[in-house]
């Protein structure tokens, strides 16, 4: 789960990483606290979990209270890439003229099967962009879990991006602290971008990213309630997560349900091959029963523009008759194209054919049929 900037900064600060002085507000009136708490100029930052927030207008600056009063209502309640802005982080604006912007981050490296530390002398921009256009500005290090991430590793990286003397030490120290956050919070990603380094050697984390491994939330009960309902997900995605289903919203009009992530991905691919557009990815998981299947169908059906549904079941642990019962119980009301094989195949087929459904044995045929049905349905409208 992604944490909001202000919460990530709270945590960073607890670990000794300097962050700007700030307040968090969720209504206009609270904005009056700027007076007491902060010095102008201030940055007003929409707390939404989307990338490119700055470019999308989610970050504004105010030189005075009057200006802040004008900006706050504009930001609160605005929509940023589909997400309503409900909270603002208001913080003292860092002086960027006498400072450099760096990047510090930790991530899980799938290839080296280790944690990787990345430092860059080009902060404030997308690190992938820097990696493409100016790879020399980036220093990377794969952490040996036996040795851990030590100050001397951090110093080496800090030096590699061109720092020296006390600045080198300061950035190294902050980097180790960020590693501590990353490890303590089961981070998938911990990032400061930009890390401001002033001419007189002070550092401030102007932005803060902390993505916590959802699977580790049992160790972080303070976040566990949010893990499933984080605003990074759409409403349907949240509903599916709460029901224990793996679901991803997609822009098409053909619903897809299958068992097993690989099989569902393959189902999407085949559908696309036949020029169908998937409305979603939905994996009911291994061993789903009639109730799970009914729930899956009900979620897929909540999208008003779904024209047909492609169901692709290869029964291993999953029993075909359970799936069939789930379909029949739901009675979707739009065309369903079912492909079903494996455990209790015969019973499943019988239940479906008895209720007027056709069952395919081959997934290509079933996908093709779903595409045609959706087309017919669209044209029939």
């Amino acid at each position, binding site marked *: 789960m992604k944490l909001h900037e202000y919460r990530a900064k709270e945590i960073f600060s607890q670990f000794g990483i300097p962050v700007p002085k700030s307040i968090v507000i969720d209504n206009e009136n609270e904005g009056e606290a700027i007076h007491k708490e902060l010095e102008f100029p201030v940055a007003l930052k929409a707390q939404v979990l989307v990338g490119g927030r700055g470019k999308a207008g989610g970050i504004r600056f105010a030189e005075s209270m009057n200006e802040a009063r004008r900006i706050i209502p504009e930001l609160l309640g605005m929509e940023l890439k589909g997400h309503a802005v409900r909270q603002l982080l208001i913080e003292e604006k860092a002086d960027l003229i006498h400072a450099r912007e760096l990047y510090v981050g930790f991530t899980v490296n*799938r*290839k080296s099967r280790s944690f990787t530390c990345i430092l860059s002398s080009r902060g404030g921009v997308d690190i992938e962009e820097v990696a493409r256009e100016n790879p020399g500005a980036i220093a990377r290090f794969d952490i040996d879990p036996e040795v851990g991430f030590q100050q001397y590793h951090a110093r080496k990286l800090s030096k590699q991006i061109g720092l020296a003397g006390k600045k080198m030490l300061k950035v190294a120290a902050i980097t180790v602290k960020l590693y501590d956050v990353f*490890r303590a919070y089961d981070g998938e990603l911990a990032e400061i971008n930009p890390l401001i380094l002033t001419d007189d050697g002070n550092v401030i984390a102007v932005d803060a990213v902390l993505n916590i491994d959802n*699977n580790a939330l049992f160790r972080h009960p303070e976040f566990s309630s949010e893990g499933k309902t984080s605003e990074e997900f759409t409403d349907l995605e949240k509903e599916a997560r709460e029901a224990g289903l793996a679901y991803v919203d997609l822009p098409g009009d053909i619903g897809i349900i299958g068992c*097993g*992530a690989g099989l569902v*991905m393959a189902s999407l*691919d085949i559908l696309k091959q036949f020029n169908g557009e998937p409305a979603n990815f939905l994996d009911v998981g291994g061993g789903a029963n009639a109730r799970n299947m009914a729930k899956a169908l009900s979620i897929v059906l909540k999208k008003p523009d779904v024209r047909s549904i492609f169901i692709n079941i290869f029964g291993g642990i999953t029993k075909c008759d359970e799936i069939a019962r789930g379909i029949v119980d739901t009675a979707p009301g739009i065309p369903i194209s079912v492909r079903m094989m494996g*455990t209790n195949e015969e019973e499943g087929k019988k239940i479906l054919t008895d209720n007027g459904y056709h069952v395919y044995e081959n997934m290509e045929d079933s996908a093709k049929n779903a595409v045609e049905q959706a087309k017919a349905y669209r044209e029939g409208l």
Partner: protein
Amino acid sequence: MSIIIDDSTKVVVQGITGGQGRFHTERLIEYGTNVVAGVTPGKGGEKVGEINVYDSFDEIPEKPTASIIFVPAPFARDAALEAIEFGLDPVVVITEHIPIHDSLEIVHRASKKNIVVIGPNTPGIISPGKCKMGVMPSHVFCPGTIGLISRSGTLTYEIVDDLSKAGMGQSTAIGLGGDPIVGLNFIDLLVRFERDPDTRGIVLIGEIGGSAEEEAAEFIKGHITKPVIAYIAGRAAPKGKTMGHAGAIISRGTGSARAKIEALSKANVRVAATPGEIPALLAEELA
């Protein structure tokens, strides 16, 4: 022959007293896997079917050589580290939803001790007719000369079913696991299948996320002489979304199906457009 497991493998089931552990232990025994014991801390002295349950490995009279883990995610790290310290090999971690920091520790400790970890979040491994350490439906597999390496579960069964029906049995089939960090990568297994005299052809089933397929492609060029047929799931997947498997996500510019297919094609690996195409392509290559 087969790789990693065969009929001499003596299996202990960790987490045998849970629902999944019980169910699949029965399936393993049915299949003929030599399950010598179960372990559930605190339940030593119980029985699951005919199998004795112990608190820890050193109490087991007939020393196991390998472990399959069904322990719930919060306790899986401890279970796997215990198996590794005891020297069991392979350690097959079926458990899903293990924190990634835990998986890294498991994988790291295993590599220090030169032990094979399969998974986490894997359907397991099967050497048809010899030994099964996994949760796959046994009936779709049959003994033969095809080595299969996959990042997926159900999709593998689908493909194996097709292969078996087309008369192409399997030497060993392995699910790497659907998580971003898993114990084995394609290359580890390509090497073994290349060496295995009874494997004639290899099927590689990849999916979006990471770059294991690209690395495999690079490796295949110089090192693999046996025919390899690949399939990559997730061409239609959007960026930045986890597609069921924690590891199936296109992020930070890497992991797209297109890049993987290109890399494999460049390495002269034929990539099937649909799972159903695989048997025919493989038959051509083996002909």
